């Protein structure tokens, strides 16, 4: 039996799953339970048979999350297991510190605030440019910029640490 937490948007969902035989999974997802037949068709491509209904799901790595496509939709999902939850806790230090990570690869073209500056929720911290479009990266909460992980002109990858706000 394996326990995980999925984070999708603002929601945290507990998932417990167990492989009965090689092709079958029993799972409790939130408050619903499922018995599904499944096959990993190729890496990241999962086929499910749920009470005769055939559903295919494609999962790829997307920064520190997963991008899951189903029925023509794409959902970014973060999966925490015992190990990643611990790692995350160490990285975060304590609850008050929030890390702002690059939502896409690009180039840091402007830094709007300095370390130690006070910041309001939704206030811009820096500007990342990709494909000639500029995206202002905003603070997730009111607080103080504890650390800037980047300087102007550097290239960043998806998921790189841009700043931490306390």
């Amino acid at each position: 039996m394996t326990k995980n937490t999925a984070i999708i948007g603002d929601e945290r969902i507990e998932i417990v799953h167990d492989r009965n035989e090689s092709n079958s999974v029993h799972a409790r997802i939130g408050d619903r339970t499922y018995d599904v037949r499944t096959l990993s068709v190729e890496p990241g491509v999962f086929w499910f048979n749920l009470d005769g209904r055939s559903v295919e799901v494609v999962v790829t790595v997307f920064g520190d999350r997963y991008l899951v496509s189903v029925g023509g939709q794409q959902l970014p999902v973060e999966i925490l297991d015992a190990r990643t939850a611990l790692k995350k806790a160490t990285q975060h230090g304590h609850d008050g510190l929030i890390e702002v990570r690059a939502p896409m690869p690009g180039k840091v073209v402007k830094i709007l605030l300095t370390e130690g500056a006070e910041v309001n929720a939704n206030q811009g911290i820096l500007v990342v440019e990709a494909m000639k479009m500029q995206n202002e990266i905003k603070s997730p909460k009111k607080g103080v910029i504890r650390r800037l992980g980047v300087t102007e002109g550097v290239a960043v990858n998806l998921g790189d640490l841009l700043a931490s706000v306390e």
Partner: protein
Amino acid sequence: MANRGEIAVRVIRACREMGIGTVAVYSDADHGALHVRMADEAFPVGPAPSRESYLVIDRIIDVARKAKAEAVHPGYGFLAENAAFAEACRNAGITFIGPSAESIALMGSKVEARRAASKYEVPMVPGTLDPVESEDEARRIAKSIGFPIMLKASGGGGGKGLRLVRSDEEMESALRNTRSEALAAFGDSAVYIEKFVEQPRHVEIQILADQHGNAIHLGERECTIQRRHQKVIEECPSPVVTADLRRRMGEAALKVVRAANYYNAGTVEFLVDKNLQFFFLEMNTRLQVEHPVTEMVTGIDIVKQQIRVAHGEKLSLKQDDVVMRGSAIECRIYAEDPENNFFPSPGKISLLRTPSGPGIRDDGGVYEGWTVPIDYDPLISKLVAWGSTRDEALRRMQRALREYHVGGIKTNIPFFMEILEQPDFQKGSFDTGFIDRWLQNRTGAHPISDSERDLALLAAVLHHTSRSAESSESPAPLAASPWKNAARTGGLRR
């Protein structure tokens, strides 16, 4: 092939079918790009920024000379509508696959284009032919044609340098802002005035003309579905254009061809108002992104026609040979995030499953394992569906979008799934503001069923579990080590 991405691949395919050898150019960011892999020869032209590579005329000409290329296809964007490039090709004795430098220059200036078209009595939106000199003049003209009016940069395009003015009071700041925007974007502050057509549709006519005075049109494309003045879905034929309207618009387009002394493939853009009156907007002197919908419906390969015409051949087709059969629709698949204000989502494509089956054409420029660079337009593919009716084409497109999987980056595929379900879209009842209005009222991503969402989460858990199992067997860490990260960011801070 003086271009990159899907259009370079498209042209290389036409050349290969015609038995013509191909030479690709590439920037440092496109080392190993699909167009580079597919071409017979490939030469680097400089660093990633396009102004240091794909836009440097001398470098492109140097490659053409070195490779002993007989002709250059400019694609769209980059140097495609650059008269100086067409001129440089001519001076170097290389055939430019497109119109003359003079036609490009004439149609490149919106004011000059309007002036030329007006001599041939092409219907035009009421407005000025000359740039407005003063605020007083702007007010006087606006009053005579009636508000609302549009201010437009003479050298503009791509939705930039446009401003809607609803009243006299708005004129001063609108004129000032449009001028400074025009100067910044196009290096020319000239601005002209047009009456604002309410609830317009954007319909364009594809033309083909040879260097012997023969010209035909290949019917229309419906390009009304735009987001912030950028086309996202195109169709052929338009759901509102009748055979009679098509004939009249086609004739008007051919007048513009004569006015511009134009040869090769080109597109004449019109606004169509709610009473199906049409007005000349501008001419695009190049191959359009959306040319495949016309190809699917007419069966004519426009790129091959371009090459033949550039080679000096007479058009082998007469107007009566152009027969439209069925209906086609195109979705521009972009590496962008519809849930984050359509911000580009470049990065490595870790998984790619493209759709196929009856009536489907996928003109892609990427492959699984390719990293979409941050430096260029985020178009990764054009997905086209053909059907015997518009309804069949739409259903095929929906089916194909469900078969399309791109992993590792976000795409606008979910956005298309939603638009295609809108009743007004399905009825063909829309204007150019359709998408922007719809997005304003949209509350969030399209809901999926609980069981689909749960299976999505379960799949993510199963994938995560198998990755963790693999990584605990091998010495490589699952993600970059926090120690390395700290050292790296520490290094950057110094």
